[in-house]
């Protein structure tokens, strides 16, 4: 079994990877969108710059974006492991990664308006721990930038202005509206995580968890899978484009989950993730061996 100190060191590795190495499926999607833009267009130039940036960050192990975001951890752990230890290790890892400039000092106390200076504060990072039967630990990390987080939004259905009822068509309308409202402000081309159902807080958490899915995967529920593909295609017709410069790629992927709801409520919660879709996943065995996950 690893010591808390060893866990911290492993988690710093996960942070380093998330902050500097963009997942291959995202890079691939960005390459394809670059090729789909007209030569000489602002959209193509923006994507060229983005692709160049990804290479620079990866080869120098430097942060892809200076806003290293809120670190969101999802951890699966074996029976009997202390979640308090895991949370403390995540917090320490964030402080240490900040000291190494892998993360920016990104935590502000809203009462004093002082930056804590080490990247950590109550609620930062957020850590979700769940027990499972495997003897290994699985860590999934998302670094969620502030600009795109500000584009997140929540709808309650029915919504008259959008002619959105309490059904999948209504969900589609909300998501498209959110994408149009975001314009380029969330650093498009973005990735949408959404959840219908749940309450105001669980819906947002699930919408973020959806962002852990690799881009090419398919939703196991056929109608939701079709909805995800449809929304990608439709939003790319809006001509918002990379950075909101206009162009053919506004969104790289849409991932939709759902949770049980109360009869009275029907929420559609939407999280916008920027092109700098910094997620990393690792399986860590009891002896400390790390296997990186897509």
């Amino acid at each position, binding site marked *: 079994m690893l010591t808390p100190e060893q866990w911290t060191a492993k988690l710093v590795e996960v942070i380093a990877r998330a902050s500097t190495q963009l997942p291959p499926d995202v890079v691939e999607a960005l390459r394809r969108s670059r090729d789909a833009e007209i030569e000489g267009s*602002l959209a193509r*130039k*923006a994507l060229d*710059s*983005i692709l*160049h*940036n990804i290479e*620079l*960050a990866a080869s*120098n192990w*430097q*942060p*892809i*974006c*200076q*806003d*290293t975001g809120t670190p969101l951890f999802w951890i699966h752990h074996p029976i009997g492991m202390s979640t308090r230890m895991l949370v403390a290790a995540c917090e320490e890892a964030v402080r240490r990664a900040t000291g190494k*400039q892998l*993360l*920016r*000092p*990104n935590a*502000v106390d809203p009462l004093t*308006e*002082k*930056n804590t*200076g080490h990247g950590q504060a109550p609620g930062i990072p957020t850590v979700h721990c769940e027990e499972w039967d495997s003897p290994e630990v699985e860590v999934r990390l998302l670094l969620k*930038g*502030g*600009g795109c987080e*500000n584009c997140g939004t929540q709808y309650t259905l029915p919504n008259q*202005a*959008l*002619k959105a009822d309490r059904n999948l068509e209504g969900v589609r*309308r909300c998501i*498209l*509206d959110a994408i*149009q409202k975001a*314009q*380029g*402000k969330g*650093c498009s081309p973005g990735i949408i995580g959404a959840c219908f159902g749940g309450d105001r807080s669980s819906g947002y958490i699930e919408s973020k968890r959806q962002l852990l899915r690799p881009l090419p995967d398919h939703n196991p529920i056929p109608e939701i899978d079709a909805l995800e593909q449809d929304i990608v295609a*439709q939003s790319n*017709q*809006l*001509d*918002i*484009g*990379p*950075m*909101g*410069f*206009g162009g053919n790629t506004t969104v790289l992927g849409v991932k939709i989950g759902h949770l049980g709801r109360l009869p009275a409520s029907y929420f559609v919660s939407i999280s916008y993730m*920027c*092109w*700098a879709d910094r997620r990393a996943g690792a399986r860590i065995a009891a002896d400390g061996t790390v296997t990186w996950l897509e």
Partner: protein
Amino acid sequence: MAKLTLPCDVETIRALKVGDFLELEGRIVTGRDSAHHWLLEHHQADVAPLLAGSVIYHCGPVVKRHEDGHYSFVAAGPTTSAREEPYQADVIGRYGLRGVIGKGGMGAKTLKGLQEHGAVYLHAVGGTAQVLAQAVVEVEQVFMLKEFGVPEALWVIRVSGFPVVVTMDSHGGSLHAEVEKASRQKLEQMLGLAS
């Protein structure tokens, strides 16, 4: 790609149009929320001459402090400009700024300010922190570091070959307003909503 050397005069800025690509050369200053408030609290005489004729960069960088005490930018992309919308036009007017670098564009008040004072909004590609940090050749000095922290401090930097696009010009043109309007119409058509 045309070069824009900073500081510059109003005529140079008036010649720029929406859609122009530029490479910036010279001295600029970073500033975001805290800096904008601070700049409007009093006339900040120390920074004023550095801002006159130059541009303010909406950026909260990752900065490395070297052993000998000098700083360098590790990651330095633009941050969302919309947060400065209530203050930007005033800051431009008071300090004689010739422009702003940021991302996501700004609103009607700033657009009017740009027209009035002869300034432009320059869009850097959001998230390209490494490409842009490479274009920061020197960190000259920093204001309010202790008070505001690294991301919010005013960093005075020298840039070379710093790529930006003019998305709001000094003649009332705004790419953001155009794209917003056209995409709203498309969405309304797509969803059969009355416009």
